């Protein structure tokens, strides 16, 4: 785990540093700029999907699905981050407590 923590941190720092020394025309290039802008969107969306539907290598429907639906409603109403997270946790926790979902 320490390997992941330290290697991840070192790489992220290196990326920040590289930006301060490389010639600006490289990152100013339209294609590179667009890809850099879109990377977090595909990665985060993939993470959301996996965190909601995957259990190791199986696709499952469990309490996380209604929890994410509740979070979506909260996001539509522009709720603050902490509220969105709490609503999801409470939804999943409640359904499990009453045995309505695994």
């Amino acid at each position, binding site marked *: 785990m320490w390997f992941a923590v330290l290697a*991840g941190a070192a790489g*992220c720092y290196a990326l920040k540093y590289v930006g301060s020394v490389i010639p600006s025309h490289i990152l100013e290039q339209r294609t590179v700029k667009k890809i850099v802008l*879109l990377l*977090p969107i595909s990665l*985060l969306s993939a993470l959301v999907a*996996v965190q909601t539907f995957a259990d190791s*290598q199986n696709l499952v429907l469990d309490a996380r699905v209604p929890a994410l639906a509740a979070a979506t409603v909260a996001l539509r109403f522009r709720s603050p981050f902490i509220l969105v*997270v709490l609503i999801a946790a409470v939804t999943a926790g409640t359904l499990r407590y009453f045995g309505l979902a695994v």
Partner: protein
Amino acid sequence: MNSEGNEWAVTRRQIVGNAASIGIAVAMYGVSFGALGTTTGLTIPQTMALSLLMFTGASQFTLVSTLASGGTALTAVVASWLMGTRNAAYSMRMTPILKTSGPGRLVAVQLTIDESTAMGLAQDETAFEGRSSRLAFWATGLSVYLLWNLATFIGAVSVSAIGDPKSFGLDAAIAAGLFALVWPQIKSRIDLSVAFGGALIALALTPMVPPGVPVLAAAIVSVVVGWVTSRRLS
């Protein structure tokens, strides 16, 4: 005090106030990150090390949740790097404004994240000989750094007292937290298709490849769509 001095005093107060409130808002994410870090198997020192050393929220959430879903350390690391590429663009933009060198540069680089860059660029670069841009960057960066780490610690310590994280719905909270991070970034139909494309590729690959890999594969969507759309525009 002359009038320019007065104006600067007003601007300075405004910038510092804004920086403080951004720090407080970000602390909410920090508490969640600290909580998720320790529930997904990291120790408190490891969770803290991510906030202190990596210090870029989306990469931290990515690393932790990839590990949580059973991904290897390597896939988690690579995913966090991909998520951190935009910081390179930020520091490229900020460096000529900050005019830093030596140790100052090394600190500024670490503080270069979404919030500090957005605040720095929101100022008029020519106002007060660039002093307001620089102050906005430094004040926001330092305020977020301080509060993000404090919040991570509070979240990490408070959750490690809890028993089974699943019964508290913390696995669902991770999904919702990530969703809340990507939600404001989706501003166009292209963004939306990238989001759906990434999610579908990840789910389609889940039964076939080891955990963590589906998320990395989803990055291909950004590369392809970014390449195609920028071609079409030019």
